[in-house]
C-alpha cells in the first residue's frame, strides 16, 4: 500500500504537466512548430522506435558512454587508491587535479577533436574525462575516511598490507566510490550528448541536432526525453547494485 502511495506521489507532477501541456496544445495556445503536443511527440516516438532510428542512435550513444565510463571509472578508482594511500603521490598529483578539474567538459571537446579527430576516440575521451573526476575525488575521500581504529585492529592481528587494503580500507571506501560512480555515469551521459551535438554523424545527440536543422521539434523532444529517461534508468540500476553490494551500510537507515 505504501509503495503504491509513494509511486503515485512521484508520478503525479509529471502527469499533471503532460495533461496541461496537451490541453494548451489542443487549444492552440502553444506554437506547434516549437512545442508540439504530447500526442504528437508520442506518435513520433512510436514511429522512430519502429523504424529503428531511435534505438540505433541510442545504442551508439550507450556504447560510447560505457566505453568512456569503464575507462574513466577504472582510472579514477586506481589513481584514487594510490592517491589515498600515499601522501607523496597525493601531493604530486593533486596540483594536476586542481588545474584540470575546473575545466568545463564543453571546453575539452574542441581540444579533443583537434587531437583525436571527430571519430569515436574523441567522444570516448570526453566521457572518460567526465567520469574520471567524480570517481577520482570520491575514491580518494573514501580511502582517507577509513577508521584508524579499525586499522589498529588489523595491525594487532598482524594482517599484511594487502589484506588491510582488501579487507579494511576498500570496504570502508566503497560507499564513497559508489557515490562517485553514480555522479560519473550521469556526467558521462551528459558528456556524450554534448559531444555528439558538436561533432558526430550518429548517436542521440546527433539525432537531436539534425532534427533541429530540419525543424522537427517532435523529434528533438523525443530525443530529449529519451536522454532523461535513460539517465534515470542507469542511475536506478547503479542505485540497486549499490544497495545489493553495500547492504550493511543501509542497516541503520532502514532498520532492516
Amino acid at each position: 500500500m505504501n509503495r503504491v502511495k509513494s509511486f503515485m506521489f512521484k508520478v503525479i507532477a509529471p502527469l499533471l504537466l503532460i495533461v496541461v501541456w496537451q490541453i494548451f496544445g489542443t487549444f492552440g495556445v502553444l506554437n506547434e512548430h516549437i512545442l508540439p503536443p504530447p500526442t504528437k511527440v508520442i506518435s513520433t516516438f512510436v514511429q522512430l522506435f519502429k523504424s529503428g532510428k531511435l534505438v540505433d542512435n541510442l545504442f551508439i550513444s550507450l556504447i560510447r558512454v560505457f566505453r568512456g565510463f569503464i575507462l574513466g571509472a577504472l582510472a579514477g578508482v586506481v589513481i584514487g587508491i594510490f592517491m589515498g594511500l600515499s601522501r607523496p603521490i597525493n601531493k604530486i598529483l593533486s596540483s594536476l587535479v586542481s588545474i584540470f578539474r575546473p575545466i568545463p567538459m564543453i571546453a575539452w571537446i574542441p581540444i579533443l577533436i583537434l587531437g583525436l579527430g571527430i571519430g569515436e576516440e574523441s567522444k570516448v575521451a570526453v566521457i572518460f574525462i567526465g567520469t574520471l573526476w567524480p570517481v577520482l575525488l570520491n575514491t580518494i575521500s573514501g580511502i582517507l575516511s577509513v577508521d584508524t581504529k579499525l586499522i589498529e585492529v588489523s595491525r594487532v592481528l598482524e594482517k599484511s598490507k594487502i589484506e588491510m587494503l582488501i579487507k579494511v580500507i576498500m570496504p570502508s571506501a566503497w560507499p564513497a566510490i559508489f557515490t562517485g560512480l553514480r555522479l560519473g555515469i550521469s556526467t558521462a551521459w551528459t558528456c556524450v550528448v554534448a559531444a555528439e551535438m558538436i561533432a558526430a554523424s550518429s548517436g542521440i545527440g546527433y539525432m537531436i541536432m539534425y532534427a533541429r536543422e530540419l525543424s522537427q521539434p517532435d523529434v528533438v523532444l523525443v530525443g530529449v526525453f529519451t536522454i532523461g529517461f535513460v539517465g534515470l534508468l542507469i542511475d536506478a540500476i547503479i542505485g540497486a547494485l549499490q544497495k545489493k553490494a553495500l547492504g550493511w551500510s543501509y542497516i541503520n537507515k532502514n532498520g532492516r
Partner: protein
Amino acid sequence: MGMAESNEVRFENVDKVFPLDGEYLEVLDTINLNIKSGEFISIVGNSGCGKSTLLKMLVGLDSPTKGKIIVGDRVVSEPRADVGMVFQEARLFPWLSIEKNISFGIANNVARENRQRIVKEAIELVGLHGFEKAYPAQLSGGMQQRASIARALVGEPEVLLLDEPFGALDAFTRITMQNEVLKIWEKEKRTMILVTHDIDEAIFLSDRIVILSERPGSIKEIINVDLPRPRDRSRQEFLNIRKKILTSFIGNSGLDVEYYI
C-alpha cells in the same frame, strides 16, 4: 600452546612522554614490571594516568620514549599476533557479519575447514548463538563487545590485553562476562592483562593488581590476591583486599576509606 615459559612480559624502565601543544606530557614514569606466563594481572589507576598507553605500547601500536618492553625473547617494536588486544570499544567491521568479524581474528595459516569450527566454538563461548549472520549494527553494545572478545580469542594470542572491555556493560552482563573470561583463562591459561576501573572486577579475576599513581603514572603498589577461585565477592578476605586497594588510592588524601566501603 606449548612453551608456556617463553612468553613472560617484562617492562624495563619504561617512560612515555607525549609531545602536546609544544610542551611535553609525561604519561608514564619508570615502569618496571614482570608478568609471568599464564598470570592474570589487573591494572587500576585514575583516569588519564596512562593505562591505555601502557597496553598500546605492549601490543606494539606505540613505543616507549625510554626503556623497553619484552615479550618472551623479543623486544616489542611492532604488533605481533602473539599479543592480542580487546579495545575499550568493540571496533567491529560494520560490513562483516558477526561470524566473519570473528573469523577475521583467526591466523591466516589456519585451514579453511578448521576456521568454521573455531568460529562456531567462539560464538558459543561468548553466547552469541543465533547471531552469526547479523551485522554489528544489529547487536546491542554488550553483544558487540562479546563479539570483539571472541575475535581476539580465536587469534590464540599468548598474551591477551583487555582495555576496560566491560566498561560499557550493565552490572549483570558485566558479571556474566567476568565469569566467562575467568573460565576462558582457566581453560587456556593465557596471560591476561586487564585494565579496569572496577575494583571488584580486578579482585575477582586477578592474581595480582597493579595500582598506578596519578599522571605521570608509576607503579604505586602491587597487591597479591591469594584467594581460591571462583571468589566470593562478599567474603571477608575479598573485602579486606578491597579496603587495601582503596586505602592505596585515597589513603594519603585525608578521605575516610571506611566511608567508601
